[in-house]
């Protein structure tokens, strides 16, 4: 049997039963990487010896009856935004080429403590700025369903690796949709937890009031199991929720009977939405209705302002966060500059790609004297209105359903030269980050061309358990998540 076809929890059962070893699972994953990744290009760095050593240690724990947790021995990949001690971390940027982190991010420590072998670092849009992985400073990643298409982004390497069964699961980050949109475009499950649910310590910062870490998996149950490992209070991240997370699998099979699920009319009225996406999402909401949920129309009247709000707040925060790349302490330095100021300017011009420069410029402008009130402060006020929209909706519904992305996967090169067209990819995912809510994408159908379509489920703050339960209720009666991608061989 090919272990790579198993879900994380199925593999965990096989490891528990000792019918498979972690070394076998890691070997099977790495062999698949070797066979496929020359075409998919999901990985920036493969850590074969590290993953095998972790697998051997896991097998010893299983043999002695002392596994480190339920997923001990299940190999996963990491978006290259997580600091990993002794391994390269580039954030997809040339400015961090060759950077070796001196410590592990908290989530990396948690994965290691839970016994999950780490296969390597996955490609991404530079500093997580992008929706197609074309902004990687290294190479674009391709969609395993069709290699001419983008897997989405910014966590496109993570999504492609999981979809192509090169990794059993992966971690991504989501600032405006960077977990959910690539999950939708590659037919996998991706969850952005509530702001504060998962520690960001040791995660390269993009926009600190929006960034969250989350799991990307093939099934909803895997997503719950991986979130369980990550959702741990961390005193090193002041935004980390100090309360212990609930058991995410306890009520996973509880179904949706009696739940009220909101359909935001503004999301379904968007011009530019692919009719096939709309049809698949409407079929999914009907399926949940048949299972006993009631569908309730809701209004999120400030939805149309979310894009502008996000593209002021996120670049403003990014311009501040990325000031640290100055060529002094780590990363690239432009040599030959006459003085320090020149060195800063040349280092940053050589090290950053075009989209990163564009966002730094936009953010610096929005924060600069004379424009702060009109742009940054204004956006923060509209953010309040967007947050209030959700508070009002959640007074009458338990969750909100929508498409994850207005279209299925698009061609590499199609939108990369038009920033505003690219930003429209995130129109359904951005409001969730602005409001700090948990949101998940899961496969809910396919276009006639055979491309996956994602359903987005948004929940109340800290209500990941219900989001997962709704997703599981849908998944239980469909086989979309079981289909193997058509763009790569088996």
């Amino acid at each position, binding site marked *: 049997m090919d272990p790579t076809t198993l879900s994380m929890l199925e593999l965990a059962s096989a490891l528990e039963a000792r019918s498979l070893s972690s070394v076998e699972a890691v070997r099977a994953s790495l062999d698949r990487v070797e066979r496929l990744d020359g075409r998919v290009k999901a990985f920036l760095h493969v850590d074969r010896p590290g993953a095998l050593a972790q697998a051997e240690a896991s097998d010893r724990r299983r043999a002695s009856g002392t596994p480190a947790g339920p997923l001990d021995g299940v190999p996963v990949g990491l978006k290259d935004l997580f600091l990993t001690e002794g391994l390269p971390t580039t954030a997809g940027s040339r400015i961090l080429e060759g950077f070796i982190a*001196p410590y592990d991010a908290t989530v990396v420590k948690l994965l290691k403590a839970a016994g999950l072998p780490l296969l390597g670092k996955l490609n991404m849009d530079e500093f997580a700025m992008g929706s197609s992985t074309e902004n990687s400073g290294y190479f674009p990643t391709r969609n395993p369903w069709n290699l001419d298409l983008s897997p989405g982004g910014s966590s496109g390497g993570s999504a492609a690796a999981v979809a192509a069964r090169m990794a059993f699961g992966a971690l991504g980050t989501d600032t405006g949709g960077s977990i959910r949109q690539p999950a939708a475009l590659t037919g996998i499950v991706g969850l952005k937890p509530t702001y*504060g649910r998962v520690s960001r310590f040791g995660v390269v910062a993009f926009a600190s009031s929006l960034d969250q870490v989350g799991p990307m998996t093939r099934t909803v149950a895997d997503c719950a199991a991986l979130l369980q490992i990550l959702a741990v209070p961390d*005193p090193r991240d002041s935004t980390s929720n100090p309360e212990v997370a609930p058991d995410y699998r306890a009520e996973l099979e509880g179904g949706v009977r009696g739940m009220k699920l909101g359909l935001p009319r503004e999301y379904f009225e968007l011009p530019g939405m692919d009719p096939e996406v709309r049809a698949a999402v409407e079929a999914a909401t009907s399926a949940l209705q048949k299972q006993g949920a009631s569908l309730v129309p809701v209004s999120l009247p400030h939805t149309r302002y979310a894009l502008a709000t996000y593209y002021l707040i996120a670049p403003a925060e990014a311009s501040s966060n990325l000031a640290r790349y100055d060529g002094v302490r780590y990363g690239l330095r432009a040599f030959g*500059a006459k003085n320090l100021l020149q060195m800063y300017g040349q280092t940053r011009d050589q090290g950053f790609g075009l989209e990163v420069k564009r966002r730094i410029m936009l953010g610096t402008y929005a924060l600069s004297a004379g424009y702060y009130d009109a742009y940054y402060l204004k956006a923060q006020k509209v953010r309040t209105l967007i947050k209030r929209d959700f508070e009002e909706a959640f007074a009458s519904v338990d969750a909100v359903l929508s498409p994850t992305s207005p279209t299925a996967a698009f061609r590499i090169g199609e939108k990369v030269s038009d920033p*505003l067209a690219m930003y429209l990819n995130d129109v359904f995912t951005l409001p969730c980050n602005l409001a700090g809510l948990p949101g998940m994408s899961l496969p809910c159908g396919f276009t006639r061309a055979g491309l996956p379509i994602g359903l987005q489920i948004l929940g109340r703050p800290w209500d990941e358990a219900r989001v997962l339960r709704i997703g599981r209720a849908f998944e239980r009666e469909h086989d979309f998540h079981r289909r193997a991608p058509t763009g790569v061989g088996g």
Partner: protein
Amino acid sequence: MSLTLDEVRHVANLARLSLSPEEEALMQTQLSAILDAMAELSRLDTAQVEPTSHAAGEVPPWRPDAVQPSFSPEKALGNAPAKVGTSFAVPKILD
């Protein structure tokens, strides 16, 4: 909203980016278009609305200010592009 080249250069200087002339021209066009799209926010009356700076909304928790071990100078300098002894080396700051 149309940015002048001088404004683009001013912002690039604030951001410590030495842009090439081609990049400056591209930024002028693209940032102007993006700012035009952002201008729709001005249609909303937000005079009575408090800004949201953070999704958490709650006051961050306190922790004791306890001394923790930190990196050795060697480890802290491990990624330094240039160093002298246990210091980061940089070009002249004052001309």
